[in-house]
């Protein structure tokens, strides 16, 4: 896989996507995966919260340089993951939401650009305000491309309403993402959805790559 950078608006499900993608790649390849948690904006629901649990699945979370302290209010970003990028290992870069999250990417631009293979994915959910229509999805990707040195290379449709998610939500969001992908000239990289919904809609999904998960990793059962 190489390097996969993941962006998207706040709350689009970037971290959930990163964690699920890491699990799939670790399972499929039998090789370790690194998640670089570069979320310097939101102090809650960061992938470093699940570092211990993911370590058992051959996934290393590299968050801040203070031992993945979840109560840390300061960014204290660690760029230690860049040595893994340079070595060509599987690294998923989990950015913070929106344009502000991209700022950290500038620091690792040269390392990533020199990678033989990288993807820059944008996670979109039709049921979040910032990407609530095809036009808004397109506009968001334009905003990212305008300030990012690397252009977005693929979209991820993550249509959901948490526990209230239905097959319609998934399909409607995917349709919108396909339309946005056509307008942007950027392929639909993935569609992500829960397994119980997947079983009912697998024939109707258009995306070539489907990421299926059993239950959300970043939310506790009671949440």
């Amino acid at each position, binding site marked *: 896989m190489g390097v996969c950078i993941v962006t998207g608006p706040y*709350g689009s499900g970037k971290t959930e996507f990163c964690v699920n993608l890491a699990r799939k790649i670790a399972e499929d390849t039998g090789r370790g995966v690194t998640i670089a948690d570069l979320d310097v904006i939101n102090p*809650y629901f960061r992938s470093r919260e699940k570092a211990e649990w993911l370590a058992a699945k051959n996934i290393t979370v590299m968050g801040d340089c203070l031992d993945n302290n*979840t*109560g*840390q209010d300061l960014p204290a970003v660690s760029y230690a993951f860049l040595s893994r990028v340079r070595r060509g290992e599987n690294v998923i870069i989990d950015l913070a939401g929106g344009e502000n999250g991209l700022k950290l990417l500038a620091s690792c631009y040269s390392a990533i650009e020199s990678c033989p293979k990288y993807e820059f994915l944008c996670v979109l*959910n039709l*049921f979040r305000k910032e990407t609530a229509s095809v036009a808004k999805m397109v506009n968001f990707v334009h905003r990212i491309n305008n300030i990012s040195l690397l252009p977005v290379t693929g979209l991820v449709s993550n249509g*959901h309403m*948490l526990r*209230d998610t239905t097959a319609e939500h998934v399909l409607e969001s995917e349709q919108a993402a396909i339309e946005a992908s056509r307008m942007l000239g950027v392929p639909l990289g993935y569609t992500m959805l829960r397994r119980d919904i997947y079983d009912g809609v697998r024939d109707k999904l258009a995306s070539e790559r489907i990421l299926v998960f059993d239950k959300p990793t970043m939310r506790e059962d009671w949440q």
Partner: protein
Amino acid sequence: MKMLMKGNEAICEAAIAAGCTAFFGYPITPQNEIPEYMSFHMTDRGGVFVQAESEIGAINMCYGAAAAGVRVMTSSSSPGIALKQEGISYLAGAQLPCVIVNISRSGPGLGGILPAQGDYFQCTRGGGNGDYYMPVYAPFSVQEATDLIFKAFDVADVYRTPVMVVADGMLGQMMEPVEINARPPVKTDKSWATNGESGTRPRNVVNSLNLNAEALEAMNHARFELYKEIEQKEMMVDNRVQDGDEIAIVAYGAPSRIVINAIDELKAEGINAGLIRPITLWPFPYDVFQNLPKSVKHILVCELSMGQMIDDVKIGVAGKYPVNFYGRCGGVIFEPSEIADAARKIVKGGC
């Protein structure tokens, strides 16, 4: 239509829909999305947004806007709310409507950025000086938070009082599907407002200073008459205790959802438990504890603190039942299994 929203964003959308036209705030984790969202959306919709020089500046700007008769809101998190206490006391003294949102974190002092409920005393006992209370709403879901924002603005206007909505950091940061159930603001007479119409009526002065002892006492009495009315009309509780339940578990805010899961766990093994969830922390639903089914033998209070609401529960219980406590603090969140363990011990131990 339902949208997926973060607690902090949903609170802003609800406030704007409720007719809030002025917001003054200052950054602090975990409520930063509120001033950020307001900075984007307030001015778009004809309102005013100021990032004040401090929390104290922000609450005093609220005083000014409220005195001018507009719907105004500020937000902060625990240590920032502590800084606002003088202003809240002034708002109460001057009888000004204002909504204050506390997305609480762990303390004391600067504490930490993770969720906690150690601000119960601060919000229900008046963190500022003098004889006053303010209605305090404690939602347990993002949807309820938005619904209570509408309520908070109405109650503030009707009784001319500051009103607090307290939600811990979890709820502020958590995403849920939400529908903003907008409703027209309740109409109240704001002829007391200092809105520059002195040519047409006697001059209005809004002040909490009153150097005449008898007059100040009379004002306090009049305000406490209003508090009685608030206690009678505005108290809200989600009481799920049923006949047959052995133990009542009391919790408020997002942690009550953990208790709901613990109750399911207990029921599965034959221990009947029911939740009592105060929605208004002031006025507190004391009466609920005098009218529990006969089957209830034990009370367990669960808080993300060292135990603060437990004092109100004890007042309500008035010695009728033993009152037990289970809490975590510092930003540590209890698991459903911890609550179930605590309840199991109490029921089996028969204490």
